[in-house]
């Protein structure tokens, strides 16, 4: 325990003594961890955005006013048989009108134009899907001739058109972003490993005499190696704090600008609720990178 404490002290002293080298290594580690955490943030923000968008997807199949209750029920039953359908609910003309009134509560002119006696709104089947990307089977059911006859000719089912294209775009974009983030993280982890490897190697060269003396005085291998390892771990620990702060600032600053398109609030909330978890996770990544690269440098250059 005492020896451990001495190793820690020596590592800290070396860190301070080679402040420029330490700063460089810590900076690279910070960039790496920031990229890792941002990749994680965008991942979670995009996932929740997609979830938010897709939750809202109701396919509305508008029915002609002539459709009977039996016809509606059998149509509903046929839709429910489809694997991708989560639920189907019937919305009557009256309910549609009530919803419409609620949505346009402020607009008296519109409300005046519509009245119960002459309700222009069609009844509909609201379909919630399991996977909004695979609507083809549902489309096929709707297009069966027996079903097609029941549709309101003036308003086609609402999945077609703009909305689907937007959803597709979001899904594509987020997949691209997730992959890019992952690749960037990997690249930067490799770069920072190399830089820390070099930092430790330089430290070993500049302290060659010192290491020699330690050996002659009877220091064990771990007593000599330990400070190097701790120094590298220190890069990771310090970088974890900076990277977390940086990412949080970025999230707060950049979040509102993305707000209308992408849901960052969930990620901000996650940051606020679990700062310890985030910093700890970054620390673990940083310390692992640091220790791995310094062990690599030592096995190659520190002949004990």
């Amino acid at each position, binding site marked *: 325990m*005492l*020896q451990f404490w*001495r190793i820690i002290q020596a590592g800290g002293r070396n860190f301070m*003594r080679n402040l420029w080298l330490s700063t460089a290594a810590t900076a690279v580690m910070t960039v790496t961890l920031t990229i890792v955490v941002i990749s994680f943030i965008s991942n979670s923000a995009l996932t929740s955005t997609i979830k938010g968008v897709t939750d809202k997807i109701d396919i509305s199949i508008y029915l002609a006013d002539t459709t009977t209750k039996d016809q509606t029920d059998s149509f509903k039953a046929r839709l429910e048989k489809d694997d991708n359908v989560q639920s189907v609910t019937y919305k009557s003309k009256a309910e549609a009108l009530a919803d419409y009134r609620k949505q346009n509560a402020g607009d008296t002119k519109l409300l005046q134009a519509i009245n119960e006696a002459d309700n222009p709104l069609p009844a509909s089947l609201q379909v919630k899907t399991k996977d909004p990307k695979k609507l083809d089977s549902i489309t096929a059911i709707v297009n069966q001739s027996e079903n097609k006859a029941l549709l309101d000719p003036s308003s086609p089912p609402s999945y077609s058109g703009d909305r689907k294209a937007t959803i597709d775009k979001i899904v594509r974009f987020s997949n691209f972003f997730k992959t890019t983030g992952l690749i960037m993280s990997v690249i930067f982890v490799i770069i920072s490993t190399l830089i820390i490897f070099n930092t430790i190697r330089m430290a070993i060269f500049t302290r060659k*005499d*010192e290491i*020699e*003396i*330690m*050996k*002659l*005085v*009877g*220091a*064990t*291998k771990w*007593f000599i190696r330990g400070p190097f390892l701790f120094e590298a771990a220190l890069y990771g620990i310090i970088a974890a704090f900076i990277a977390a702060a940086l990412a949080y600032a970025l999230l707060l600053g950049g979040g509102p600008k993305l707000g209308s398109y992408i849901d960052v609030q969930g990620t901000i909330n996650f940051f606020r609720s679990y700062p310890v978890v985030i910093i700890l996770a970054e620390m673990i990544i940083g310390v692992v990178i640091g220790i791995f690269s310094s062990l690599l440098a030592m096995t190659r250059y520190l002949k004990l």
Partner: protein
Amino acid sequence: MQMILFDRVTKVYPNQSIALSGLNLHIQPKEFVTIVGSSGAGKSTLIKLLTREESHTSGKIIVGGLDYDTITPKDVPLVRRRIGVVFQDFKLLNNRRVGENVAFALEVSGAKNREIKRAVPKMLQLVGLAAKENVFPHELSGGERQRVAIARALIRQPKILIADEPTGNLDPKNAWEIIELLLKINRFGTTVLLTTHNKEIVNALKRRVITINRGRIIKDEEQGRYTLEAPTNLKGAK
């Protein structure tokens, strides 16, 4: 029991140069032994074998009861802690203060802080550097630096102190002070092994002198003088 025993020790370096060939050496506890010989005679190899910087090719080395054939790489630091070594170039940690340099030898062997705090000033007093505990090595004279090195070597109270050309970088006055310090340490009961090229010192010491040439002992006298050749009647003897 012998403090240092070399029995037909041979050391061949990887480049096939023979540094020691069948060397026999017996040193008793509390002896003060000077080893002389021209450069390349094998003095440095002898010392490197003792500190296990090198391992011998054949023969037997027993130091303080420890058979060097039984040492594993893991034991090497422990072997070095049993022996104090002083070098010509001092080998001090230049970024640590005098007191810290001496303390380092104890830190390495896991001594408690309280113990270190007590032992270091005492040892610095013994070598006459009580006032310089918080000074960096570069602020000291050569003689003072060598005293720091001696203090570091002695702080673990080794049975053996090896002084490898300790006066090589010192002026005569400082050199003598270091030799006197070694004699004082020897009087306290530590076996001292000194190598030197300094003729006056060897002749004035009137202690046991071993002369090495080409990896063999060519002369071993109880009250020896500094020569590099073997006396004709003793050639090839132990």
